[in-house]
Structure formats: structure tokens, C-alpha cells
């Protein structure tokens, strides 16, 4: 990834994004880890610590203790990096840096966009100053996600946010560099939206050139109330300006080679068309090869704003068009809307042939295209009819959470307690062997939901939350539990790291969790090591009977933390 310009190397999509940011001269990078975006933060972190290998994308396990924000190397001198405490703060920090003139990258998974949405929307109104690219990584089929199969494309509609969708690592490089250029030109943040199959795809990338001069990350905040204060009536003017800006970006999109038509020069299937984007484009090409045919394709690199005229030109002369997109039918609906004007008789296929749930695979797209061109096609059936039950992810052998869960199963009758889960390695408490999980939603929700259940029902409740998750969004919930008076037993699982996403540093290394818990007004606090099972069992039995909220901080480092 740190190779010379012009060199052809194999990169992960995420590595290509990092490369693109470096080539563009990024000066401030903030992130909260989340799969499939985590490698981006890990790589910048390694770079800032002067430790990185070509193509290595995982933070090395068992390395010596990391200090945040330290150690510049030649590249490291050019940027500031931080693992922020949550995505909202990561975005806001990025905003501050951008407003001070720095070039900014903020990276998160799809749910992170929910967390920072409150700041993201008014940010679109003010616009950026230093160019800002926001990487949002979706996870169709939830390979590494709980919560939901969230389609973050909708956030562009909500916030009027330009969004580009690269299909592979080479486009990750190209589109991210363009995003910085767009952001500079139009003074607006630009989202690069990937999926697991893009971020975690490996393919050949031709490395580009680094900015000739590495500008140190020194900016200046110049006062500009018209831009940076989002109060009415100025807010409504800003909205108008934003909508006008979007139309200018749309004009750019109409002319951009990121949106292009293929296969319209030959004579095959000219009355038919496929509209596609993101990794689905690659599956479409594979499908056409499999079917030994050719169909005109409109590949959209811009998801927002859509190049409407380009789409209209594409669909105008056609009889049938298949929209190949993952998850919800957004492009399909847009195409239907445009067709009303330019081609009302057009038959549009999409979610009637492809699922709205789960990632698309090349074989299902082949079946859909076969229907489009009325060709017989059957997915090759495996010759081996073997069915094997699913392997449930569980904590690593030797994980301290086995000690915690083991102690709990001895301390109480699990059926008589409600178990609150949250996001992190301990979310695996739901695995059949452990079976200590009755609800699981989003970061920090274990406490809030637990509070609601306790207010409603008086049943015994134990809510788990990890150290990183506690800092991310658990603290306000804990304060709420105290002042709005419910009495769950909260177990903060302090394994001294952010483990699930690759062992990134956790704020608990610098700030003592028990001090915060005490400051929130909790009276019943115990800090213990779950290796001392007897102590844990006694503490749980004792605290479950308390009239007020109680907190056990179960502290034992993750295997991979020295």
C-alpha cells in the first residue's frame, strides 16, 4: 500500500481508500471501529505509530502498548489520527478540523452514520471548508453486524449528501480521490459508500502519485458566522443554497465518467438494458459472461445526486430494463419515476427478480438476467448433497468472558433473570452454549432498555456492557438510570480493549471507569477480576437484591492485550 506510483499491487478495498486519502494529502483522520470499515482506522493508526508493512491491514496483536496520537514518520507527519470515542464525536472532530481548513477523512460502518446523523445533517447545510470525505461501510447479509441490514444510501436522501459507490478496490482508490476533489470544489462533504464485498475485496490496484508536498496538519479557524452557525432564519437560506449546490453537482455527475454506458456499440440486445452500481456491477459482468451474451449496462458511480438525464437517455429507446441493486429498490423507483416522462411503456424489472434482503450473489443475478433476455438458465446444483449445521461464533478459548458467564450461571438461575446484551465480543453471550441474552439492539442500548424494563416490571435484570461501548454511549444511559431511578445490575465488562473489531485502544486505558460510575451517582460499585469466581458470585448475589442501581466492573484483559 505504500508502494511507488504506477506499481500494481493487490489491495483490500479499505487499503485502497487509505492509499487514496494519503495520495490526496489527508491531514485529519477520525474513526470509531466497525466492520467492514475497521482496517481504515487500523492502518492510519499503524502509520501514525510509524509501524506498517506493505499490504498489512490488521493491527498487530500483542504489540507493545500503544499511545494515542504519537510518533510521526514521514507520512505520519502529514496527518493527525484518532480513534474517537464514538462516531458522532469522530464526525464532529472532523468537522472542526475541516472548518479550520484541514483535509479530512472520517470512517465508520453503516450504524455509525446513525450515531453521527445529528451532526451530519446541519454539516451539509454549512458545508465543509477543508475537503471532507466520509467513508460509510454497509454490510448486506449482516456478515459482521447485529441490529439490522441497514442501507445507508438513504442517508443521502435525508441529508442531501453526495455519495459515490465504488465496485472494487481500484474504484475505491479512484472514487475516494475524486471525492476529495469534489469536496474541495463544492465545499461539501462527500460520502464513499462501500459494502463488505467491496471493502473486503482484494484486487489489483494501480497506485497513484502522492501529493507533491506533504502539508503538516496546521490549520486556522477563521470566523464565519454565516457558515458555521445553523440557526433560523439563516438555516432556511442554507437549505436553499444546499439544494442549488446539489443541482450543480448533478451537472457534474451527468458529465462524469463514473457514470457510463457499456455494450451499446454492438448489436446485441439493444432494446434491453441493465442499470447497476457498486459490487453488483461485477456480478453483472460475470453473469453476462456466464450467459455468453451482451446487454447494454448503465453503471452508476454516483448514487447521489443521480445523473437523471443520463438515466433518461439510457432508458428512452428500451423495451425492458433490469435494475440490479442490493437491498431496497431505490434506483428502481427512480427509474420508474423517470420512465413516466420519457418511456411510459418501459417494462422495469428489479425486486420482482432479486431479493431485497441479503446480499446479491452472481448466480442470482445470472438467473435474473436470463429472465430478462428470455434465456433458459439453471444454477449449477452441487453434486454433493451435504448439509451441515451452522457454526455459532463464540468467545475465543481463554477469553475472560467465559469466566464471567460461568460465574453468573452459578450465581443465579438464568431463567429467573433478564439478560441485557450489547455490541462487542460479549454479544456472543447469545450463543447456545452460554445462552445469557434476552435482548440485543444497538451500542449502549443495554442500559437504556434495561432501565425501561425495570421501570415496567420489577423483574431481576442484569445488563452487560463493554468498556468501549460504555464510553461510546453508555454513560448518559447510566446517569439516566440513577436520576430516573431504576435498579438493574449493570456489569461493565472491562477487557481493556475494543476487541471485536480488532483490538483498538479503549478510553478505559486513560480514564478509570469506576471513577465515572461513581461520579454518575451510583452507590453500589464493585471492581473485581472474574478469575476470582467466588468473589464474582458473591457480588452478583449481593447486588441483585439492591434497591438502587448497582455496577460490577469485571476487569480482566482480553487474551490479545498485553
Amino acid at each position, binding site marked *: 500500500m505504500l508502494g511507488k506510483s504506477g506499481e500494481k499491487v493487490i489491495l483490500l478495498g479499505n487499503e485502497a481508500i487509505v492509499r487514496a486519502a494519503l495520495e490526496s494529502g489527508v491531514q485529519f483522520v477520525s474513526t470509531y471501529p466497525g466492520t467492514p470499515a475497521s482496517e481504515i482506522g487500523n492502518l492510519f493508526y499503524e502509520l501514525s505509530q510509524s509501524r506498517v508493512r506493505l499490504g*498489512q491491514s490488521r493491527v498487530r496483536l500483542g504489540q507493545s502498548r500503544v499511545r494515542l496520537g504519537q510518533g510521526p514518520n514521514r507520512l505520519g507527519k502529514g496527518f493527525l489520527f484518532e480513534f474517537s470515542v464514538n462516531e458522532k464525536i469522530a464526525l464532529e472532530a472532523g468537522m472542526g478540523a475541516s472548518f479550520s481548513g484541514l483535509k479530512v477523512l472520517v470512517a465508520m460502518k453503516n450504524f455509525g452514520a446513525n450515531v453521527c446523523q445529528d451532526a451530519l445533517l446541519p454539516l451539509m447545510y454549512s458545508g465543509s471548508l477543508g475537503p471532507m470525505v466520509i467513508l460509510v461501510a454497509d454490510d448486506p447479509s449482516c*456478515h*459482521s453486524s447485529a441490529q439490522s441490514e441497514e442501507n445507508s444510501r438513504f442517508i443521502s436522501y435525508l441529508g442531501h449528501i453526495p455519495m459515490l459507490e465504488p465496485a*472494487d478496490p481500484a474504484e475505491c482508490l479512484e472514487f475516494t480521490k475524486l471525492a476529495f476533489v469534489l469536496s474541495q470544489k463544492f465545499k461539501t462533504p462527500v460520502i464513499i459508500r462501500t459494502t463488505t464485498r467491496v471493502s473486503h*475485496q482484494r*484486487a489489483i490496484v494501480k497506485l497513484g502519485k502522492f501529493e507533491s508536498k506533504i502539508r503538516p496538519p496546521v490549520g486556522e479557524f477563521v470566523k464565519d458566522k454565516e457558515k458555521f452557525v445553523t440557526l433560523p432564519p439563516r438555516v432556511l437560506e442554507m437549505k436553499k443554497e444546499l439544494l442549488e449546490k446539489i443541482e450543480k453537482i448533478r451537472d457534474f455527475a451527468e458529465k462524469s465518467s463514473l457514470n457510463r454506458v457499456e455494450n451499446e456499440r454492438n448489436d446485441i440486445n439493444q432494446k434491453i438494458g441493465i442499470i447497476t452500481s457498486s459490487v453488483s456491477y461485477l456480478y453483472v459482468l*460475470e453473469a453476462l459472461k456466464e450467459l455468453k451474451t451482451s446487454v447494454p449496462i448503465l453503471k452508476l458511480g454516483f448514487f447521489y445526486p443521480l445523473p437523471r438525464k443520463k438515466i433518461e437517455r439510457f432508458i428512452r429507446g428500451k423495451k425492458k430494463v433490469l435494475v440490479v441493486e442490493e437491498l431496497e429498490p431505490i434506483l428502481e423507483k427512480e427509474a420508474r419515476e423517470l420512465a413516466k416522462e420519457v418511456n411510459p411503456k418501459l417494462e422495469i424489472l428489479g425486486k420482482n427478480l432479486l431479493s431485497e434482503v441479503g446480499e446479491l450473489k452472481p448466480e442470482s443475478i445470472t438467473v435474473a438476467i436470463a429472465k430478462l433476455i428470455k434465456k433458459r438458465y439453471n444454477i449449477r446444483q*452441487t*453434486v454433493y448433497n451435504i448439509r451441515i449445521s451452522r457454526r455459532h461464533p463464540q468467545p475465543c478459548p481463554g477469553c475472560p468472558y467465559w469466566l464471567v458467564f460461568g460465574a453468573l450461571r452459578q450465581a443465579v438461575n438464568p431463567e429467573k433473570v433478564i439478560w441485557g446484551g450489547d455490541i462487542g465480543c460479549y454479544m456472543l453471550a447469545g450463543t447456545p452454549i452460554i445462552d445469557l441474552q434476552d435482548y440485543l439492539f444497538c451500542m449502549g442500548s443495554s442500559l437504556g432498555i434495561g432501565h425501561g424494563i425495570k421501570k415496567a416490571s420489577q423483574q431481576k435484570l442484569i445488563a452487560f456492557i463493554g468498556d468501549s461501548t460504555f464510553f461510546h454511549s453508555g454513560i448518559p444511559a447510566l446517569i439516566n438510570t440513577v436520576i430516573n431511578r431504576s435498579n438493574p445490575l449493570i456489569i461493565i465488562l472491562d477487557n481493556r480493549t475494543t476487541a471485536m473489531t480488532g483490538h483498538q485502544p479503549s478510553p478505559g486505558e486513560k480514564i478509570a471507569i469506576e471513577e465515572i460510575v461513581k461520579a454518575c451517582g451510583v452507590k453500589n460499585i464493585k471492581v473485581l477480576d472474574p478469575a476470582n469466581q467466588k468473589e464474582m458470585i458473591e457480588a452478583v448475589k449481593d447486588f441483585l437484591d439492591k434497591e438502587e442501581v448497582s455496577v460490577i466492573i469485571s476487569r480482566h484483559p482480553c487474551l490479545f492485550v498485553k
Partner: protein
Amino acid sequence: MKKDKNFNIILCGVGGQGIITLLQVLAEAALLEGYDVRASELHGLSQRGGSVVAHLRFGKKVFSPLIMPGETDLILSLEITEGLRAASLAGETTTFVINKKLIPFQDGPTEEELIRKFKKMKERFQLIDASGICLEKLGKEVLAGTYLLSVAVLNDLIPLKTESILKAMKNKIAPQYLHSNEQAFALGKPSSPLAKEKA
């Protein structure tokens, strides 16, 4: 390798066995030989003792990073159950090179059940005690993947040269682990009946 066709490998096993490193080495080797390469892998949640599957494709021109059902040329599995699970993407000519290692899980098949299932398949598979051999000869089970890789390469099951693999290992494996991996690779040798069947 046929001109228009790609070579498709599924690498699989249980999270933590080193599948991603193996993938990086193979992808690099293919790049060194001038092929177009695409791969797809899964990280994160799937690795906490869960199944890990990586698709690797190389050839003149590769479009999809995911292999279509029936198109797999080789399934290289670091664990026996996962090797069988990957059979859902296998075709008539798919070869299996499977590490005998079993990492059991709740409601999963027993070793006897697995071996019975394998025996029902045609002869296109090799069950190798890679973990056992690496533990015995080199003291480290985690080298099983590299050993399996060498079995596949030295038996002509992957259309890549040994030199390319060794060079790729130098490029991709951390310096402190390179030597042991080279030793593991040297352990494989042309052995099985499969060596006589060319792709």
C-alpha cells in the same frame, strides 16, 4: 489453465486458523505470474470461532470476486467440517484438499460422520493430517495452512509455480514467521494419486 476460464479456489476453515494470510500469499503469487486476481473474504464476527470462507479467483480477466456454484476448481480447507460445508459450491471436477483437523461445535457432525460423508464423494479429495504433521515436525499447528498449500502446489492442483508462491510468502508473511512457513512449505511433496490427474 484454459484460456478463457479462471482458476477458482475456496479457502476455508475456522476463524483464527490463518486463512486470510494464505489468501494473501496465493493472490500475490497469481499477481506475480501476471494474472488478473480478485478475492473476497469475511472478517469480524465470523471469526470468533465461526466459519471463515474466502474466495480467490485468478485468470486472464476476472469479474466477480465471488465464485459461482459448481465453478470451484479447488477447495483448500484448514478444518474438516468447513471443507465439507464448502462442498455446496463444488462441481463435478472440484478437488478437495482438507486438513483432518476437527474443531467441533454444538450440534455439529462427529469425525466418523464426516469421514463417512467424504467417502461417499468421488475420489477427488485428499484428507491430510496437516495440523498433526506440522505439530510433530515443526512444533506449530498454525503452519498447517502453508503445508496444505504446498501439497496442493506440488501436486499440480494449483496452476501456480512454486517460485511464485515462495516469492509471495516473502512479500506477504511477517519476517519473524517467514522461516517457519518456508519450512512448512518444504514439507509437502508430490504424494497422492491426485497428482496423476491434471486439471
